[in-house]
């Protein structure tokens, strides 16, 4: 990402999740799109308020699981039938019921790894630096007990003075400008 300069956005701090959710809902109604909420624990209503619905983690998990299943089952079949056929008490080489167990385990393994790493990738993590960490009140609050609404400068409606006045109408604890 090229180095940016200037304002990242305006960050309003609230004491309760309720205040944050109401502010975010109002902002969305008023046409704000480039915004995000920051909370110390998952607040489902906040994600709804900013209009976040498309969650692709389940799809990634499904794809991962199917890949694990296919890879292991085909691998077992190839090994047992072609690569290293073993005659175990005259049983058929393609003894698929016995192949189910490792294939089942790998379905879960790949699905689980896809869920976890897919989630991090979709979230753009790891990202050790973020402009929000520059806000003086963010690091003490966002992971402890404060609830933040950030209106980002990339929103076409964004104007530093107007947005600040707009955020003040929600009676937050503070509104601070966040620099890149």
């Amino acid at each position: 990402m090229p180095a940016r300069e200037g304002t990242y956005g305006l960050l309003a701090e609230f004491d309760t999740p309720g205040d944050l959710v109401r502010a975010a809902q109002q902002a969305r109604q008023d046409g704000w799109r480039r915004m995000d909420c920051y909370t110390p624990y998952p607040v489902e209503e906040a994600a709804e308020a900013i209009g976040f619905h498309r969650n692709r983690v389940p799809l990634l998990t499904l794809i991962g699981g199917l890949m694990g299943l296919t890879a292991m089952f085909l691998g077992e079949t190839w090994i047992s039938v072609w690569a290293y056929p073993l005659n175990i008490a005259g049983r058929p080489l393609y003894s698929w019921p016995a192949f189910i167990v490792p294939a089942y385990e790998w379905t879960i393994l790949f699905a689980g790894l896809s869920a976890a790493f897919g989630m991090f990738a979709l979230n753009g993590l790891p990202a050790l630096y973020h402009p929000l960490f520059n806000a003086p009140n963010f690091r003490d609050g966002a992971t402890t007990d404060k609830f933040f609404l950030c209106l980002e400068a990339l929103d076409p409606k964004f104007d530093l003075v107007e947005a600040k006045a707009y955020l003040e109408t929600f009676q937050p604890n503070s509104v601070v400008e966040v620099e890149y």
Partner: protein
Amino acid sequence: MATKEVKPDPQWTDPATGEYRVIGLGQTFRSITEKISRIVLTPETPLGWFAFFGIAGAGATLLLVAVTWLFLKGVGIWAITQPVAWGFAIINFVWWIGIGHAGTLISAILLLFKQGWRNSISRFAEAMTIFAVVCAGMFPLIHIGRPWLGYWMLPIPLTMNVWPQFRSPLLWDVFAVSTYATISVVFWYVGMVPDFGTFRDRAKSKFGQYIYGILSLGWRGSARHWMRYETASLLLSGLATPLVLSVHTVISFDFAVAVLPGWHTTIFPPYFVAGAIYSGFAMVLTLAIPLRKFYHLENLVTERHIDNMGKVMLATGFIVAYGYGMEVFMAWYSASHWESFMMWNRMFGPMGWSYWVLIACNIAIPLTTLWSRKLRTNIAFMFCISLVVNTGMWFERFVIIVTSLYRDFLPSAWGTYRATKWDYMTFIGTLGLFTTLFLLFVRFLPMIPMNEIRMLLPGAKIGPRPTSKAAAEKAGD
């Protein structure tokens, strides 16, 4: 269950619902964050921690000695021989992995059932799972005699052009246990990421900020991130649930697929899984009770947790009791000479004492006393019962392995089993290793998931538009 005769202490009940509180009164987002992060972020380590660490470290050293000697001399230093070729190593393997199962049950299955009370204990139950799997996974590896050839078990292209045999439950074990270990670690780590973020922001030392900053991956609590995170957690739980059931099932196949009386039975999978959860909850209690006392976490790990764990133990204990009963019944009903001799020999043979220890520890003592709420909320009693059940479950594995093997079909092939000092040292050593890892976890990682606890607080409820002042006060205290 008869809960009505005991009047709950009003301090511990929620006036709105009349239910037992999961979290003590008067906790706020900040107070619980401080309480939990202080344990880790303080520069001073309590002296008691060092004392425990010293003892546990000595145990772990014992393991190092035992395993070193084993690698030098071979498995002949253990008591395993014909007819008992699976001795302590496999007993300990099954026991340890069973203990791990409760961690996954608490973190995954109870999450799916929306049991909010699990939040306080889920993290260290998961840690327990991982450390138990570490101890368990070691045993098959050192048991194979030539551990440096352990990689032969993996389906990887080797110059010898030899591939594993996929029809064997022993190979299924490789996949079940390795998947279980991997998914448990991933689940554990994903759960800790937001808490690492909290530590990063609260650490005073530069070093702590760096380390927890890297571990947190830059977590900043964005609502979009949280939603994906919640979905991933839910999916991981949904995946861990069939996984945990499959792991002990596959382990029971190691026995059940053999044609040996005492092993060759279809009840093994459910009975192994129930036994695993039974012993695992006992181990959670063994760890949680001293921990909450030592770190003053009585407000977070409350009597309700202890009580609920007692109930789970009661339920799984009865499934185990049913398993024992069915084994005896089938020994008679099968009309097989070998089956009924095995059961007679198990109960009254030269090693019959071990069967009665098992019955006393797993059935007689816990399943008669855990009915009483008074006893279930008696912390000292629950600690003792957890040790009793752990012992009982260890003996269950001893009974299954040794008493099924030592007198098989031909009397001329009969033998006995008496563990050597190396067997004991290895076992005690894994207890030491487990405790060492657990103590390190308690000292350096968030042992209670702060982000999940916050959701349980009254301040986390989003009311129907109260005045912001009243809401602020409500969240403040």
